[in-house]
């Protein structure tokens, strides 16, 4: 059967399985990805079926994981590495930013480093510190990296396939709080392009732009707004670098209003980039300034207050009201 109903985590697992089967050069690497199947079980069963040479339990060293993945890629492999949690990518940040991102340019295009870095990210699961962060802007800011984040099972499956096939390094952010949400995956359909945004709900009064974990929140906000007679359009960005501004522009030209929603802190976040570009592109269509809803300029707070920190329905709808009030 080509169509299956799978939770996001399982869709990623199937995607990795398909990639490992299709191409002997694909490798899965990371801490605890083998026997344990990863702390979220995303790689469950892969080592059993593909062996320790292809699904590799690495030493506890993120810089080592990414640095050696670069070397393997230089040798013709396509490593898909797992960083166990968002907050643990920083020991590898040097390798990602100073090496992985720049090697293609430095070699005048002669060298390709097709490394995929999977990072479970975002909050809402009641974890301790360093386990709930949204560092996507830190990667999107770096030329040479591509950054994507699926919001549902189908995208989780397909975008990972596409990321692995891409000759560029791709940072693949997985919305961990959506891991257990089920959705349909058609493993034989023709997927949308990796870096295209999609309109996931049509509306006329204002546009909500989100990606990853916040897409569902925005869809729920749009449903709640509809009960109050407001028609919101929701755009799932899917890719944070590059961003499909054409799709965003078309939506804003239709609705005249834009609210960008993400979990990451608003200050210097991806919402700032979107607001600036949309203002340049759609100045005469805008009925209100572009508003942003996101995290505060604070460390991600302890679990018992994370619900106050994270954008929820109310904060999104509050921004919609402010936008409509102009």
């Amino acid at each position, binding site marked *: 059967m080509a169509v299956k109903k799978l939770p996001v985590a399982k869709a990623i697992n199937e995607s990795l399985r398909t990639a490992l089967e299709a191409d002997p050069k694909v490798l899965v690497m990371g*801490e*605890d990805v*083998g*026997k*344990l*199947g990863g*702390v979220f079980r995303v790689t469950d069963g892969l080592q059993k079926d593909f062996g320790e040479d292809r699904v590799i*339990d*690495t*030493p*506890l*060293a993120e*810089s*080592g994981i990414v640095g050696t993945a670069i070397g393997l890629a230089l040798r013709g492999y396509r490593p898909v590495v797992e960083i166990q949690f968002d*907050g*643990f990518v*920083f*020991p590898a940040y040097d390798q990602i930013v100073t090496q992985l991102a720049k090697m293609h340019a430095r070699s005048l295009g002669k060298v390709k480093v097709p490394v995929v870095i999977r990072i479970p990210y975002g909050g809402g699961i*009641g*974890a*301790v*510190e*360093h386990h709930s962060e949204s560092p996507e802007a830190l990667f999107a800011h770096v030329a040479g990296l591509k950054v994507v984040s699926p919001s549902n099972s189908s995208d989780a499956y397909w975008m990972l396939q596409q990321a692995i096939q891409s000759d560029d390094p791709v940072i693949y952010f997985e919305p961990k709080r959506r891991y257990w949400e089920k959705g349909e995956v058609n493993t034989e359909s023709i997927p949308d392009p990796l870096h295209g945004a999609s309109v996931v709900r049509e509306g006329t009064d204002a546009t909500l732009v989100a990606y990853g974990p916040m897409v569902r929140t925005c869809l729920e906000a749009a449903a709640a707004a509809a009960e109050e007679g407001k028609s919101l359009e929701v755009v799932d960005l899917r890719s944070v670098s590059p961003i499909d501004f054409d799709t965003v522009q078309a939506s804003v030209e239709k609705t005249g209003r834009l609210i960008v929603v993400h979990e990451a802190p608003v*200050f210097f976040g991806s919402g700032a980039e979107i607001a600036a570009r949309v203002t340049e592109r759609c100045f005469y269509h805008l009925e209100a300034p572009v508003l942003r809803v996101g995290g*505060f*300029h*604070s*460390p991600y*707070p*302890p*679990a*018992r*207050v*994370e619900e*106050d*920190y994270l954008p929820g329905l*109310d*904060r999104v709808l*509050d921004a919609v009201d402010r936008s409509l009030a102009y």
Partner: protein
Amino acid sequence: MTVESTAARTPRRAGTGSGAKRTSAGAKKSAGAKKSASAEKATGPGTQPELVQLLTPEGERVENPAYDKYVADVTPEDLRALYRDMVMTRRFDAEAVTLQRQGELGLWPSLLGQEAAQVGSGRATRDDDYVFPTYREHGVAWCRGVDPTLLLGMFRGVNHGGWDPNSNNFHLYTIVIGSQTLHATGYAMGVAKDDADSAVVAYLGDGATSQGDVAEAFTFAAVYNAPVVFFCQNNQWAISEPTEKQSRVPLYQRAQGYGFPGVRVDGNDVLACLAVSKWALERARTGEGPSLVEAFTYRMGAHTTSDDPTRYRRDEEREAWEAKDPIKRLRAYLEAGGHADEAFFAELDAESETLGKRVRDVVRSMPDPEPMSIFENIYADGHALVDEERADFAAYQASFADAPADAVTGGEVK
């Protein structure tokens, strides 16, 4: 089990103090020295490293010419105190696991099985020493006099630390693996600059030894001769990965490559942990620089309460280690030597029950933080953006409060 000292292997001053004692156990000692010389050549997975042990798993005291002197002044009262530390720590840990199961804590990293390593090393420190823990050093915190209930806040999700590191010279728990080894080294460099004679202890796990930060900490500590003890609890596992997935040589041998001594100690033997830690701390205090202690022990429980060890290790392994239990071992020694009577054990039971109840009560009444606390303590000198966001958020919160009736809050939020 072989009972040999590694002290003779690495040349150093602290281990060669008393000539009389050395000759009295001369035969044993030189045998040990020979053996370790050959082990040094054969640095591979087949190497059988030596282990400093003073109490066998059965609770029998064995002589150790190199380390006996570090526990020569330990009285029966001290032994009972060590026993009490381990029992209280285990009780506290068990209570925390239960509280996690009841939903009162979000997560708990249990120290079950590692009590001797923590209490032995923790009791070797002086008040003016400074300790940099990971996230599992509940027993060390206990020895440093930190109120154990303070350790629970971050696992309940009400704060990211919760204690003042300077009150007991016990730094905050560090979750990012290996980071604290550099902080400890830097702190120790400061101690040396100040000409103080205190020492610093950095705790780390076997998995942590793979991190670049730890390699850099070893380098800095060696180059600057920093008064720091790297106390590695090799509990055999880094979540699902065994130590062989981190290192192809016994961990204590790594120190040699950096130019300081490494010793493997029986991590389930509190007396040996105390002795070896004292040796290492004395080195630090007397200007002899860093050392690595590998406490060879076992994590009896899961990595944390969210982990399922049945996926990666066999029950028999745990059972084999149960026979080496640190608490049972000291109890056997106390009883055999007539160092503790029934009344002592009964009193301790009651005391640990009281601790358990206090921990339960404190945790259950721990309040959730106020939402506005998100904006507290981000900067020491303040920040305009934070002030703006705080004000906006306060107004936003107030908009809910005064929606039904202004009278409820008067629309005032600080």
